[in-house]
């Protein structure tokens, strides 16, 4: 499956992300962090025995640079975020996946249509490059957006 949108409640969101990552342990991943800093995400993964050795982080929460291998992108710069994700997909060889931890968070910083366009381009590009996309969104946020974008995904699951 090339792209999956998982809509779940806020309490269950992190568990779903953890579970998805555990299923992807043999692949190299790009993790776009929109609601937690890379540091706290890594701590959560560490607590859940999830290795992050194969993960490339794009931190959209903080601009504070803590590690050289983490990319910090302002969430209101969708074009930069898109370029970053595409570049990672292009640079990483072999089987790879992309996780976006809270798609609807982008609505705080961007117009709904712009986010929908971003998602469309992202899923298209990932599909062409054979990259699996798993995007998460809390069920309570951005219903309008979710209605607009669910068609761009191969599968949408409400958990």
């Amino acid at each position: 499956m090339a792209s999956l949108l998982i809509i779940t409640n806020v309490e269950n969101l992190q568990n779903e992300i953890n579970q998805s990552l555990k299923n992807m342990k043999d692949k190299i991943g790009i993790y776009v962090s929109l609601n937690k800093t890379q540091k706290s995400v890594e701590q959560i993964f560490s607590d859940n025995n999830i290795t992050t050795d194969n993960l490339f982080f794009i931190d959209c929460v903080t601009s504070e640079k803590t590690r050289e291998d983490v990319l910090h992108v302002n969430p209101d710069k969708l074009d930069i975020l898109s370029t970053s994700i595409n570049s990672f997909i292009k640079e990483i060889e072999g089987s790879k996946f992309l996780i976006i931890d809270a798609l609807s968070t982008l609505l705080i910083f961007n117009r709904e249509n712009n986010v929908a366009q971003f998602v469309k381009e992202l899923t298209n590009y990932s599909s062409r490059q054979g990259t699996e996309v798993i995007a998460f969104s809390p069920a309570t946020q951005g219903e309008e957006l979710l209605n607009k974008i669910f068609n761009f995904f191969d599968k949408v699951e409400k958990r």
Partner: protein
Amino acid sequence: MNKNQYKALIILVILMLFPIVASAQQAINLEIVIPDSYKKTVKGNKIYFTINLLNLGANQRFDVTLKYDLLNKNNEILATNSKTVAIETQASIVGNLDIPDKLSQGEYLLRATVFYPEGESKAETTIYIKEKEDINPFYYLIIFFVALVLLGLIIIIAKPIVSKIELRNKIHKIVKNKNK
């Protein structure tokens, strides 16, 4: 009139006509053609023109001297140039003349004279000489601001492109370092 007198009269008539025939053999028609771009020129410039020569006389090759003069309304020669060329039946020669710097603006006469063994022919035309156009400093200011605006536009357009290239390079390094 006896026979001898009749012969003498014929010889006399021939001798009287001979100089006219000889002169006609050497007659040269002369024409000056100035391109439109040189009909009005700026002082200090060099003008170019074409001299068309047509030998109306015998088909005999000979040298002629061409002289070009620039004259004012009082017929004073202000600039001159000359060259020698060979002509048989006709010739087109490109001539040139340096327009002096110290002339005032106005209409002047360009005269071409061709000197050949038995005489000379002339042709004239007028040219208009203008003052040198000093570029207004205001134009420099406009050019400067236009260049400044263009530079600004280039920076505005190029900045995102450069940023993206830098971003791609950074990601390339991140992936490369992690793969080590």
